[in-house]
């Protein structure tokens, strides 16, 4: 294995064998598997996964571009979405208290959870008090993040994922690899094999057409929906001024869970609050077009506490921190909390498209995951374990900026990545043993801080021209510089340095005239 300059790697786990081959095993949904550089290298060897992803992301990119292009005020909507979220962060305590008051006034019960364990314990207690041993679930990032299904299983309560992609992930004992389509790394044939092996009641002659696979899931889940007594959901938005919660979905599994059981528990990250009901007119346009590339998703449900005679009569809202207030404390990083989980940034990211979601070692992959995960877990700060693998995530980007352009709430992800890289470097300054990277940076700093030294160093690059030869680049350098060329070529230095060129053009003048010429 090659050296990755300055990147920590202390995340260990062994992949487990599933019906579709090895799947990652996650003790912590926000920190699993190898660090990104190692995991990415391995993922690149999986040609099937890369084909599946390349096909899926290019499809969704085209759909998104076409439905975004037809909205003349798209930029105005983004500006509003961004500002509303900035306003939410600035007034978070006040808005959460208002949301709580309105949900409570309408017959709901509000719980607060500082971390994953606390949230899981609340859901478990609610289920036990009602003697429920099976719950149905709406796809939710918050419950993925806290590992709710595993916690419920330990308490003897089965959690049934009802979103098709989540069901695929659950049946294959896999981890999600995409925010919106967690099974995006699987193709139809793999899903057919999985359903035949693991899904009760799958017909023996099941084909691999998406229509047939969806029908098999419908039949499998319908009984569970009609008999479920308790459901758990996430929330896309929680409206402070009315206490209204919102779930945006496609299949109708969300409506089933939100409507039919007696008890509904919603786990919502505290950053999902929006100030007013009419703010939904903005996010209701931004989210579906950015997410599935549709003008509107098939179903959106809005409910406020309990409505007598319609839907669950026992409603609980769990407001989850789990690192969000830590992210809020970073006055640059807090913009990552504006995320509405559309996944547009994943679909346009050249890095995500090639390495897939598992390489990020978090339920939040891709560009937003590369900032959100370290912010939630405090990687690169004194709160995190020494050598936290999540500290490598901000490097998982080329900083091309496609994610910023695609983001419906204008999160400047490239700037956040750079900010977190700086935070990571700062956190490691006090180390006793400097790395090769630190040494190289120190040497470069020494050379570049003095004109004469830089001039001499430039002359030394002539040797590299010889090494580069007619190819025009250097493919391998001897150690310690091999660390640089292990994953990139070094272009041949130019025949003449800028200083030499300047001296030639200006008859030996050393450059002091430049300021006057430009004045």
């Amino acid at each position: 294995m090659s050296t990755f300059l300055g990147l920590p790697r202390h995340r260990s786990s062994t992949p487990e064998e599933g019906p579709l081959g090895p799947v990652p095993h996650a003790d912590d949904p926000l920190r699993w598997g190898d660090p990104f550089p190692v995991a990415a290298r391995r993922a690149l060897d999986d040609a099937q996964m890369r084909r599946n992803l390349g096909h899926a992301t290019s499809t969704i990119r085209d759909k998104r571009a076409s439905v975004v292009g037809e909205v003349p005020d798209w930029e105005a909507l983004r500006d509003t979405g961004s500002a509303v979220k900035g306003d939410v962060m600035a007034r978070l305590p006040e808005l959460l208290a208002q949301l709580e008051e309105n949900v409570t006034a309408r017959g709901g019960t509000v719980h607060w959870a500082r971390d994953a364990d606390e949230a899981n314990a609340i859901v478990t207690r609610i289920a036990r008090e009602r003697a429920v041993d099976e719950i149905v679930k709406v796809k939710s990032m918050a419950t993925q993040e806290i590992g709710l299904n595993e916690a419920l299983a330990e308490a003897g309560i089965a959690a049934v994922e009802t979103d098709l992609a989540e069901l695929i992930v659950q049946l294959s004992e896999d981890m999600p690899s995409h925010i919106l389509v967690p099974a995006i790394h699987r193709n139809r044939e793999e899903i057919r094999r999985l359903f035949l092996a693991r899904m009760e009641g799958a017909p023996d002659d099941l084909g691999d057409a998406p229509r047939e696979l969806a029908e098999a899931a419908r039949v499998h889940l319908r009984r569970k929906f009609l008999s479920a007594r308790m459901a758990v959901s996430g929330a896309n938005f929680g409206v402070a001024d009315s206490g209204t919660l919102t779930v945006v979905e496609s299949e109708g599994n969300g409506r089933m869970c939100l409507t039919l059981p007696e008890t509904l528990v919603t786990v919502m990250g505290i950053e999902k609050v929006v100030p007013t009901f009419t703010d939904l007119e903005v996010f209701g346009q931004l989210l579906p077009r950015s997410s599935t590339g549709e003008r509107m998703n098939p179903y959106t449900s809005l409910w406020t506490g309990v409505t007598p005679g319609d839907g669950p009569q026992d409603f609980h809202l769990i407001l989850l921190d789990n690192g969000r207030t830590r992210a809020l404390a970073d006055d640059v990083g807090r913009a990552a909390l504006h995320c509405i989980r559309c996944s547009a940034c994943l679909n346009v990211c050249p890095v995500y498209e090639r390495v897939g979601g598992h390489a990020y070692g978090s339920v939040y992959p891709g560009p937003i995951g590369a900032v959100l995960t370290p912010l939630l877990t405090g990687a690169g700060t004194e709160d995190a374990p020494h050598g936290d693998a999540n500290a490598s995530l901000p490097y998982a980007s080329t900083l091309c900026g496609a994610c910023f352009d695609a983001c419906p709430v204008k999160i400047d992800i490239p700037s956040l990545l750079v900010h977190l890289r700086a935070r990571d470097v700062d956190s490691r300054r006090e180390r006793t043993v400097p790395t090769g990277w630190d040494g190289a940076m120190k040497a470069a700093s020494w050379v570049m801080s003095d004109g004469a030294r830089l001039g001499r160093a430039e002359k030394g690059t002539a040797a590299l021209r010889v090494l580069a030869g007619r190819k025009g680049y250097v493919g391998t350098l001897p150690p310690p510089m091999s660390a640089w060329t292990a994953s990139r070529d070094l272009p041949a230095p130019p025949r003449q340095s800028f200083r030499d060129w300047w001296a030639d053009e200006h008859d030996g003048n050393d450059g002091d005239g430049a300021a006057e010429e430009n004045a």
Partner: protein
Amino acid sequence: MSDARTQILGRAREALGADELDVPVPREYRVTGDLAPGSDDVVDLLVDRLVDYRATVHHATTPTVAETVAALIADARTVVVPTGLDVAWRADWVPEVLEDSREEPLDVATLDAAGAVVTAARVACADTGTILLDGEPDQGRRAITLVPDVHVCVLRADQVVHLLPEAIRMLAPHPARPITWISGPSATSDIELSRVEGVHGPRTLHVVIVR
């Protein structure tokens, strides 16, 4: 758990520190569309969107609603209606009609066995092809438009607005009502991101537009 509450709110206040700034929110986006509510153009746009979602659109006039709906549900053995549905729309239906209300709800098995459900709507947004229900007596409980496999939704042309903000602002006076936005039949794109209509919600959505 007031302890967790105090601590989370305390952490948030501490995180924000002194910079509890006032963030101005620009609202330069369109809140009123170019197409007038109920106009032929706005209805045409809605129809275009609905067809794109693979919903089926039918046109009727006030006197022909009943026969138009009757033809759509003729094969069903039972059909569910909310108690507040316009009785004029229910003339001459063949199937047995089962009324549902919050006070006297049908059980889930009855809904599951029903061939279709017929409801009205609150408002529709043409731009996104979305029908918005707010659970009032002419639309009924959320379960009735979910469990039966065929949903026939009767929409008056004057309920069709151009843009989403126009629709949301009609709902805004009563945000606490149980609200469902429906844009076509249920669908999934979870397998290779190719869209398949008909998963857990009604697999068939008929929209009857009354002018």
